[in-house]
């Protein structure tokens, strides 16, 4: 990549120090209460558990809303700050893969995810909770560049068993095990 000609001096990056060290930064994830380092009393545990589940559910709902926005915007090639702040691990990877596919295909979405309800599942431990969501995506339509409906002809009602983890000060959905259902009848998240 070196340029020829009199007067060109390759000096590496040191000369451009100031340009390299700008001052922008990522928006921080939404702060959540921090568990105490020592074993708290029972009431404190209960309170912390409740706060963690609330923060985890809020992260899931925020992630879902951000995904809806990105699908409506025509997908994306990289995770938005809001998506990175609410999703991680395999959940983020699979989501990004789908958003990239939509972007490559020139599609965009209309409609929103309908979350029937979110309930607790599994145990609680510091920095990790399990949630089960009844998630109905059937109202989301996908359109190609010409406006033709290209919505996949598959059932998109899922019972999502998710793991939500605390990363830094924020909670992120890290994995999801999806089960397609034709009806949410009898599901714990639809009672």
């Amino acid at each position, binding site marked *: 990549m070196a340029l020829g000609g009199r007067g060109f001096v390759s000096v590496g*990056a*040191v000369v451009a120090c100031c340009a*390299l060290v700008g001052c922008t930064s990522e928006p921080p994830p939404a702060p959540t209460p921090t568990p105490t*380092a020592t074993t708290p009393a029972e009431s404190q545990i209960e309170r912390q558990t409740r706060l963690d589940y609330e923060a985890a559910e809020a992260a899931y709902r925020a992630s879902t809303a951000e995904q809806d926005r990105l699908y409506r915007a025509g997908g994306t090639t990289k995770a938005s700050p809001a998506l990175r702040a609410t999703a*991680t691990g395999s959940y983020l990877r699979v989501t990004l*893969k789908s958003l990239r596919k939509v972007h490559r295909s020139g599609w965009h979405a209309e409609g929103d995810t309908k979350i029937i309800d979110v309930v607790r599942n599994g145990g609680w431990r510091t920095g990790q909770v399990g949630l089960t969501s009844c998630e109905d995506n059937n109202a989301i339509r996908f359109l190609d560049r010409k406006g033709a409906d290209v919505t996949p002809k598959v059932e*998109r009602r899922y019972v999502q068993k998710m793991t939500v983890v605390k*990363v830094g000060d924020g909670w992120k959905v890290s*994995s999801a095990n999806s089960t397609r259902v034709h009806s949410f009848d009898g599901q714990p998240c639809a009672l």
Partner: protein
Amino acid sequence: MRALTAVATLGVTLVVLGPAADSPALADDQVTCTKAGDCTNIATRERKGRQVNEPGWSTSPDSRQATDEVDQTVSEARRKFSAALAAYDRSLASFNRCVRTFDPSLNKAGCGNAPTPPTAPQFRSDTFSGRGITAGQAAAIAVARLLLPTIAPGIGPSPKLNPWNMAAVGYPLWLWADGPTRVGPISDSVGGLSVSLEAEVSSLTFRMGDGHMVNCPGTGHPWTTAVEPGAKSPNCGYSYAKPSLPDDSYTVAAITNWAVTWTSNGQSGVINVPVVDTTELPVGELQVLVR
């Protein structure tokens, strides 16, 4: 008169990939579906092994003797449990080899872009009720079920802080563990035994994607805007000698070594768990025109 010219490839995206932080409670064939209707099998595509340096994975003489003293149901459950542990042990050995040889620039050993820990063996803990499981076995299971936080490679100054969105050849980069470095104390119950866990990052290894490796004591020092331009990290840094651009980015892998201290039934020990995460780093050259 001087003119400054930057030679760089613009528009390179920075993609951070985290390891799968999967729930141990999930089945092996975990499938994640998206709003577009496509589904991905996480188990076959993304799950790898986890290293646990813990003796006693096979059924010990003591526990074999104990088997004779319990009923047939427990004996059968223990047989399955031991088989699951043995299978898990093989995964750990595979993962161990994988981590030792993993280099994102070479992608050796079929490890993929970021080896991630496997799911803990599944078993019905109420079947055992504390009969025949050693404290070490219980601890190993508890550690395997422990979800350690994602720690992305911290690299500073971030390429996003300059107009070319890249790191520069020759510029001293600071490396650190970008995430929580302590977890716990956490309590878990395995086979009726209570296990207390506390995890801490003990060391950090970076594979820089250009064939070089950097071993760092502790967790490194985060770079901040207060750092004087051009200053080197006190204990964990690197300068690239060659650019990755214009064709590609370097895939930088951070191998975080967690030391998980366990206590159960009056015994204690330490299990080391490496976790791998990667990030893409575009590296280019900056040149100056002097007249």
